[in-house]
């Protein structure tokens, strides 16, 4: 497909709708996903996605909009999962697994009963650009706005509850309410993402952008906001990519969105490793008042190991040490002292 043809395709109504849906999905899913990752519930989105399959099937069976039946069933499933998790002691994850498989199997079975083939379910499992009607875009937009308003508006509370629920309770926060809210918002995001990424891959859009942004971020808020940006880029980029490829082959948008998100993770990972290493190296050395070794211990090694004068641009990390700077190389810490370096 040529660029002109692509531009033409992107200009079509259905494509504009799909792009809007993808953008909102890309923003909303990682926002709520950050809280799931914080609570170490990264797979909750996946569980809800499986349960929502039954919801879609019920919509197909009864002839109502699968978006709405999916929202309802996903919310019920999310609340159930949250309750099991709260009560659940040791076998919580087994109970969750039962729910996952029940949701998926139930969905496929009911779709069959509805006299629909696997194809009609396929659209919801892996997403489809062309299937989004304009009313559905408005539903999607409305739901995404609700998710974003609540997660960003209640960010301090949700953060406190997710990071230390006991402390939050002493502070008077309604921990159970906030946990349920996160579960419900996750369910809503799953259904929001259903049309673009599809139910089986939705969890990736909730988790992978967060995994990417936490490589680089040091605070919760930055992680969340950066994950939203990354999610939006992945969703829109993946959609355009799949539209581009659709001339040659049938490419569902879900897989290309997820693969793009994973590629972004793969690209930032080495940067994250490098950043963390650099941060550790740059940590100022503690100033020891009493126990420090003899301050005048001349760095004793030959000039071929040490052919230059340490300085701003010598390439060796310069680390603060009280009132001076130490240069780090090969496990040494050298402080300039007149003509030579002291070993610190």
């Amino acid at each position, binding site marked *: 497909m040529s660029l002109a043809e692509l531009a033409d395709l992107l200009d079509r109504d259905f494509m504009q709708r799909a792009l809007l849906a993808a953008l909102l999905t890309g923003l909303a899913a990682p926002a709520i996903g950050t809280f799931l990752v914080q609570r170490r519930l990264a797979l909750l989105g996946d569980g809800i996605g499986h349960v929502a399959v039954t919801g879609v099937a019920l919509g197909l069976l009864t002839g109502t909009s699968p978006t709405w039946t999916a929202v309802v069933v996903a919310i019920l499933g999310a609340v159930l999962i949250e309750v099991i998790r709260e009560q659940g002691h040791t076998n919580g994850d087994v109970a969750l697994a039962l729910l996952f498989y029940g949701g998926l199997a139930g969905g496929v079975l009911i779709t069959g009963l509805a006299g629909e083939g696997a194809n009609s379910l396929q659209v919801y499992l892996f997403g489809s650009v062309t299937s989004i009607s304009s009313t559905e875009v408005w539903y999607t937009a409305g739901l995404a706005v609700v998710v974003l308003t609540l997660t960003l508006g*209640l960010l301090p509370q949700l953060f406190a509850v997710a990071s230390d629920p006991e402390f939050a309770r002493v502070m008077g926060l309604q921990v159970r309410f906030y946990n349920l809210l996160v579960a419900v918002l996750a369910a809503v995001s799953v259904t929001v993402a259903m049309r673009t990424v599809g139910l089986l891959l939705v969890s990736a859009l909730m988790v992978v952008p967060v995994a990417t942004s936490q490589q680089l971020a040091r605070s919760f808020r930055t992680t969340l906001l950066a994950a939203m940006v990354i999610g939006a880029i992945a969703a829109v980029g993946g959609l355009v990519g799949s539209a581009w490829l659709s001339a040659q082959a049938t490419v569902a948008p879900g897989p290309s969105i997820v693969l793009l998100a994973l590629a972004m993770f793969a690209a930032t990972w080495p940067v994250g490793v490098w950043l963390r290493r650099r941060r550790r190296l740059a940590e100022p050395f503690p100033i020891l008042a009493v126990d420090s070794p003899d301050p005048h211990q001349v760095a004793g090694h030959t000039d071929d190991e040490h052919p230059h004068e340490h300085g701003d641009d010598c390439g060796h990390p310069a680390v603060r040490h009280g009132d001076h700077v130490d240069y780090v190389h090969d496990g040494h810490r050298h402080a300039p002292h007149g003509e030579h370096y002291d070993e610190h």
Partner: protein
Amino acid sequence: MLNAAGTPVVEARDVTVAIGGRPVLRGNDLIVREGEFVALMGANGSGKSTLVRALTGLRPLTQGSVLLFGTPLHDFGDRHRIGFVPQRGTATGGVPASVREVVSSGRLSRRRLLRPAGRADRAAIDDALEVVGLTDKAGDGVSTLSGGQQQRVLIARALAGEPELFFLDEPTAGVDLPNQLALADALRTLSGRGATVVLVAHELGPLEPLVDRAVVMRDGRIAYDGTPLSHEDVHGHHHPVDARHDHVPHVGSPFDTMSHDPREGGR
């Protein structure tokens, strides 16, 4: 200050807690009055943390009642009046969080929903960071700090809410001496402003001069309540009051015969 006549801030009566059917706290009465600095001591597993958790509402009572500032715990809404430092640095979550963000969450009991942090909030957070000496680490990820530094983050989080009643569960475990001294200074200031402190500790260290009342737990009961004990009294020989002690699991505790009401005896 030992405050025999002050308003009771904590009133616990007959506090009994069973965990999984096993009694962990048994019929404890404890009254803490405004401005008191109480050290809660006792061996590992004697129930100190459980008592603190019962007093803050984290552990449901099997029997008995707790009043905070004269209000039953269940109806107690003025959460900004209490501060809590849990034992052990809580495991950090799956997402990085900065020191400042964690400390800020201690301010939530004073913030209204959907309102940005105001000037007073930011000032209180800055103060709290200053007190624990983490001002220049405010932007760092909590998980990159040492265990003692993380403990100081939790202390700052409780300070940020500017509470009147503090529950600190072993706040100085793993904290080095200079920072214990800094914490002692902070608690002295708070105490001087009239705050009430309930502190769990094995070693009081620099906090010792602040303590004006010691409560010693033994096997789920308050075994001593009165003027501070020397280290020797608590740990030196097995039990400060009675000599008759066998190391058989307790059926009837040796303290049964002399279990005393702290409101009458002790002080």
